[in-house]
């Protein structure tokens, strides 16, 4: 065995040498620069011409010296050149000294349908709690035959499921009911992210407790500073609601509720209570603060829609964006207009793209995995004409048959004539509901290739 190994290893060495020698000879033959002297970082030939790319014509320092040892960064971090790819926040949304606040995800830099854990949008009502997993307990009580207390290890003992779902704050786009506010994709649409979650269906745990027949609602309560609570209908609990500890193959980040959060697929992000502490089953809903004072959608009638759970079908163009415009695209270049579509009410089945702000549409191409209550990528190829003006509007449809409304349809109601806008308060959502805005978004590409966020309205 030893001999064979030795032989093999020497063969490899010989091969390396000979291939090196060959390429060297080959190189000299071609260039004829027999006497070229290689300076420390300049690749021969030494006479570099103006049209030569410096990036090619010199040895970069990372190629001529030791890189980091594998012992560095035992938990990997992004390249230092990626430092601008971060969550961002604004004073407008910084109430509670940035504790009852939100930092939004850089979706203009997003690829595919997974948000890296460090970029996942972060929302809390009393700051990010840092829970000691050893002191973590989940209590489940109320209308059950047997209340229980579980440690984290005990929860992980149940059969687990892994699902890819987005979480979206229902206030995503909620500052723009009256007019666009952000020339930024990150802020206009970044109150959401998408991840692969691992945990247990609550219905699996309920087998151990014995739900009483009169239980109609579940209270989920966090252990954080705000003791964040929400009521959830039993239907969702017995369908796909999960308790999750895993996010994209690792433990939840503290910002996402480490060590355990509720995941309510497709529904308001606010329902996905973080730093979970207790579930209680009851006959009546609880009227927690975040389901009364907030997360209720005030309509023109003066009545507010409450328990408005699902994030409705939605979409946006991602490439180009205000942040990454087409100013460097050449005349005649083929560009891939790419975007995201999602629906908390089902699976995206179709995305249409308009170049004129929503008057005429073409059907775009859905790409990659198509999963329920999950981000879905779509794209459309376009040959760019320098100086052209475009109004890029995307519109998604889901398998429940819901299609995104225009701005006017959502505000004033479907089928209402322009002359009748605002006359019947029972039609449309008006502009005061804050939450659940899912009208189509439009991105203007101007003659310079710059991108602006606009809304196409008839009034």
């Amino acid at each position, binding site marked *: 065995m030893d001999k064979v190994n030795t032989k093999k290893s020497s063969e490899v060495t010989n091969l390396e040498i000979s291939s090196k020698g060959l390429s060297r000879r080959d190189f000299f033959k071609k260039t004829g620069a027999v006497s070229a002297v290689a300076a420390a970082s300049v690749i021969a030939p030494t006479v570099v011409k103006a049209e030569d790319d410096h990036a090619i014509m010199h040895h970069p320092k990372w190629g001529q010296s030791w890189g980091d040892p594998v012992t560095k960064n035992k938990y990997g971090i992004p390249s230092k050149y990626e430092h601008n790819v971060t969550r961002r926040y604004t004073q407008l949304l910084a109430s509670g000294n940035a504790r009852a606040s939100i930092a939004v995800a850089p979706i203009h830099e997003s690829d595919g349908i997974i948000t890296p854990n460090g970029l996942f949008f972060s929302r809390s009502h009393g700051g990010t709690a840092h829970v000691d997993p050893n002191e973590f307990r989940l209590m489940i009580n109320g209308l059950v035959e047997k209340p229980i207390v579980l440690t984290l290890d005990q929860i992980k003992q149940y059969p687990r499921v892994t699902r890819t779902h987005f979480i979206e704050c229902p206030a995503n786009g909620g500052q723009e009911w009256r007019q666009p506010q952000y020339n930024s994709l990150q802020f206009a649409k970044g109150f959401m992210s998408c991840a692969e979650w691992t945990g247990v269906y609550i219905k699996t745990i309920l087998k151990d407790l014995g739900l009483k027949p009169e239980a109609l609602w579940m209270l989920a309560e966090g252990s954080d500073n705000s003791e964040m609570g929400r009521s959830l209908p039993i239907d969702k609990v017995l369908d796909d609601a999960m308790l999750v500890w895993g996010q994209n193959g690792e433990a939840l980040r503290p910002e996402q509720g480490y060590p355990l959060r509720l995941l309510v697929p497709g529904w308001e992000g606010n329902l996905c209570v973080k730093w979970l502490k207790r579930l209680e089953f009851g006959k009546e809903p609880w009227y927690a603060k975040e389901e009364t004072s907030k997360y209720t959608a005030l309509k023109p009638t003066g009545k507010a829609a409450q328990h408005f759970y699902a994030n409705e079908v939605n979409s946006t163009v991602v490439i180009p964006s205000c942040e990454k415009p087409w100013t460097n695209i050449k005349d005649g270049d083929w560009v891939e207009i790419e975007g995201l579509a999602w629906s908390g009410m089902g699976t995206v089945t179709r995305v249409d793209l308009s170049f004129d702000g929503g008057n005429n549409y073409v059907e775009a191409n859905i790409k990659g995995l198509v999963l329920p209550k999950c981000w879905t990528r779509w794209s459309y190829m376009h040959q760019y004409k320098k100086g052209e003006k475009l109004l890029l509007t995307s519109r998604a449809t889901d398998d*429940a048959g819901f299609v995104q409304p225009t701005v006017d349809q959502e505000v004033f109601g479907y089928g209402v004539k322009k002359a009748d806008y605002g006359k019947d308060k029972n039609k449309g959502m008006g502009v005061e509901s804050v939450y659940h805005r899912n009208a189509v978004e439009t991105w203007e590409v101007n003659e310079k290739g710059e991108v602006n966020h606009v809304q196409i309205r008839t009034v």
Partner: protein
Amino acid sequence: MFKLEQYKILTASLVTVAALSVAQADETVAYNGLWNAKKDISGGVYYPIKDGQTGPYKVNSQVYKDSDAVNNESGVKVGYNNGRIPTDNELKAWDKDINGLNEGLPEGSGYVDEGEALYEAQCMMCHGDFGSGGGGYPALSAGKAKEIKRTLTNNRWLNPTAEGPSRVFGSYWPVASTMWWYIRDAMPHTKSKTLTDDETYALTAYMLYINGMKVDGELVTPSFKLDREKFMKIEMPNRNGFVPDIDGPNGLENVRTYYANPDNYGAYRLKKGEEPCMKNCQQTDNIARVDGGITDFEPPMSVARDLPPKKEDAAHKVSFDAKAAYEASCTMCHATGVAPAAGDKTGWAPFMEKAYEKVLKNGLEGTNMGMPAKGGSSLSDDEFKQVVDYMLKF
């Protein structure tokens, strides 16, 4: 422990509704089939477990069997025996919620004027005089609740600069238990769960007072005392301002019915066979643009792939900017008259009588007079001391 019968009884009420919708729309179970899927309570698609699969996902068939909400089956095959029963004391410690029927509200009492004193010491620095709000913190009052409630029909849909609705406790919130529960468990924001039940009653009483509200027909005055019995009789002006009606045994059915109708929430569901509009859908030249808008992004927007600006290495930090920390974390009280400002020798004099060590200790640990521990900041003890020293430099 679990019994299938329980599900049957539990969801019996839902069967009727679900069966009804099946009959009306001729719906069959279908994954990715347009206009064809079963609905869940939110109006969305329900993906049952069928043949070892839910939607596109496979499931372990040792654990799950076919599920169908219409037949009251959650699809869970077997139970386990994890965890333990909580002790009575443990339940008492954690099971402290209060619902909209005031179930769970403990005994206790408090006067409006007691609440006012507490408010001024512990709440005003964020929520403003008389709950007026400001600085991004929510307003708690906007005048007499009943009058303010009328603003809820204000809608700026035709006139963007008109007066909008005012959603404060008195004008908007449907029940008062929410306020009591939230004050006790989540307030004051910088040191929650430190108020007694009586203090919580007093603060809630003060909320009723500044909102000009009535209890059992009586207008709340500074000498009003709120106790559990009176709490039950608080009249919330907007009690019926929310749809659908979620209360009582029909609550879930009401939710299901409400969200089965897209007109109720500004949505449109294509009819079977209907295509979305593709040509001449909306002809208009009206492009609404960002006018000023919001641009104070932190960090500032950039997509450059460059090296980050050189920062001081935190591990070798030689100087800490106490003034900047003061401005970021302290000025909301210490520069607004609530507490003495940096360098205000006269203002600090009464505190300094107790000696520097006491002032520092109070700062580090917080006081029940409204000073949050370390000002609610995340500074280290040493950094915090530098801020205190900065503030006490006369």
